[in-house]
């Protein structure tokens, strides 16, 4: 099916990945510099997934995210200005500084929030999928969640309901092999989370989550099925996070080896994709560099915006509780 992918789409995916990577690298740095408070869960390494999925979506399609949510919002069209402002806790952030990294969101882009609760997303995505069906749109709702989250009861209940009602929903498991510091083998007795799909009566698919085209194609099929009333799919993307569970170097635990990290970095979604696009004559080194530069520029502007933005007025603390 890769014949379906136009050059524009390929370049679009590339740009989304670069934007995510560039944003995340700087976010990690700013956190280490003490500019960003709280907990930051970086998406570096997993860019192919958000990017390969999101090119299929419009702003009227919904997604729910996880604690590791920047990548999803960026791929969905998030602007770095408001994003950095939010991470800084500024009044100009997407959530007026009230949410921060773990609750970053923008409903206008169809992004129903990062979530501090593991497994918090699937029920909400299922509800948004119901809404798409109820309101007779042809939109879809996508739930991103981790391998660790697949063990939460909330995932189970949401998956069963989505299949029962044949909702336009796609459950995308970003299996990066760990829930915090616990390897998958220590949190479930299965290798493929997709094996849970038949138990709900939906198709389960496994793809290489480091390959944006594989993700693009599998997601495209699942999303098309969802739009056509064929019900949900459980799509598992095997991936890896380069940095620690939280922050960059995190707690400095030795729960995984340097070799393991390096092995996965050989599959880097951006490096390999750029090579592939170069080979196909689609993206010259200069053109690639321009994409990176543009993202870098966007990051600089975003940081500038965040740093010069005002803090929230302390009186705002009790605002926005009720409509």
């Amino acid at each position, binding site marked *: 099916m890769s014949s379906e992918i136009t050059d524009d789409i390929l370049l679009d995916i590339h740009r989304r990945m670069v934007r995510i990577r560039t944003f995340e690298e700087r976010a990690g740095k700013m956190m280490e510099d003490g500019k960003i408070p709280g907990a930051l869960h970086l998406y570096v390494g997993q860019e192919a997934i958000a990017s390969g999925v999101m090119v299929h979506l419009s702003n009227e399609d919904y997604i729910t995210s996880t604690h590791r949510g920047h990548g999803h919002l960026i791929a969905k069209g998030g602007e770095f200005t408001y994003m950095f402002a939010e991470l800084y806790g500024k009044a100009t952030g997407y959530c007026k500084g009230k949410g921060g990294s773990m609750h970053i969101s923008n409903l206008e882009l169809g992004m129903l929030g990062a979530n501090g609760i593991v497994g918090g997303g699937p029920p909400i995505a299922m*509800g948004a999928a119901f809404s798409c069906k109820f309101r007779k749109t042809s939109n879809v709702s996508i739930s991103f969640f981790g391998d660790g989250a697949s063990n939460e009861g909330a995932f189970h209940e949401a998956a069963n*309901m989505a299949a029962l009602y044949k909702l336009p929903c796609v459950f995308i498991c970003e299996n990066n092999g760990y829930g915090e510091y616990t390897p998958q083998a220590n949190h479930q007795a299965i290798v493929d989370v997709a094996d849970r799909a038949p138990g709900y009566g939906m198709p389960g698919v496994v793809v290489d989550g480091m390959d944006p085209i594989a993700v693009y194609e599998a997601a495209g099929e699942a999303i098309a099925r969802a739009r056509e009333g064929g019900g949900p799919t459980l799509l598992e993307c095997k991936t890896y996070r380069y940095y620690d569970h939280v922050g960059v170097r995190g707690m400095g635990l030795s729960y995984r080896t340097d070799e393991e990290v390096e092995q996965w970095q050989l599959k880097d979604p951006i490096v390999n994709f750029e090579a592939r696009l170069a080979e196909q004559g689609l993206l010259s080194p200069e053109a690639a560099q321009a994409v990176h530069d543009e993202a870098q520029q966007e990051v600089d502007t975003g940081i500038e915006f965040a740093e010069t933005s005002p803090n929230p007025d302390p009186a705002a603390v009790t605002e926005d509780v009720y409509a």
Partner: protein
Amino acid sequence: MAEAQPKPRELPYVAAITEGVRTVMQEQPDAFVAGEDVAEAGGVYGYYNGILNEFGPDRVFDTPISEEGIVGLGVGAAATGCRPIIDVMFMDFMGECMDEIANQLAKMRYMFGGRATLPVTILSMAGAGASLAAQHSQSLEAWICHLPGLKVVMACTPYDAKGLIISAARDDNPVIVVLNKMSLALMGPVPEESYTVPIGEANVVRSGSNYTIISFGRMVHEALAAATQLEKLGIDAEVIDLRSLQPLDSDAIVASVKKTHRAMIVHEAVRFGGFGGEVTAQIQELAFDYLDAPVARVGAPFSPVPFSPVLEATYVPNADRIVAEAKRQLGL
């Protein structure tokens, strides 16, 4: 001479709930009803009877036994333009969906900087007295009143049941409507047309001059019965039905206590850590100098709800216990 008024129509509480839900479904095309056995069966207490027939399976449907999923359905649908009516069959089951209620439903708007609106109405059945034991008899309003972002109302009459449900569904915030399973057959006047009972306004159901009983839910009826008994002791009790616990009508409470100088709060929930603590604290904060006696609290003793009718009868507060506590409080 006044003209003879036609006797207002009376309905049982259960039918008033149904009528409230039906009215909402008629008025709001984006409303739907979801919950365990709410559609085909009409609800285990029958208060959705006829709703499926009238509005069809797209708008009224049964769910799996998945409370977290059900409330999540409400959250996701509400954030994207629907106005869900979600049934959590027994309030005791809120433990199964407390994360959805507390961390998603109540907080999403705030976490998103005010950029989400969650018009979810949750209906749930509370209360002891039916020998349903520890896991089907609880009153857990204290949990949800402590959660900024939620509104919480409790209906003790058919009139209020219908009116509060309509108000809840029109509200753009999540509102939990707590119903009472022992009141289903209770008759009372219910206008046929659509009307609202305002959220945030207490109801003085009996006026009195020298004692205030504050209550909510089914205990309001026990408070009224107690007031009749107290009359014989020279106590002229005002009875306030809070109706809305969140927001709380502190003004109504304080106005009454400033007049009567003595107060009691009565609820069905376990006394320790119950909502009565908040009410008591507010009274003494806002009307300290008016109090002639400590505010008394009547609630369930410190145990789970027992099964045996003999034990349950001891457990659930009633008019006699209210009277006894008032006497103790006032040294009578």
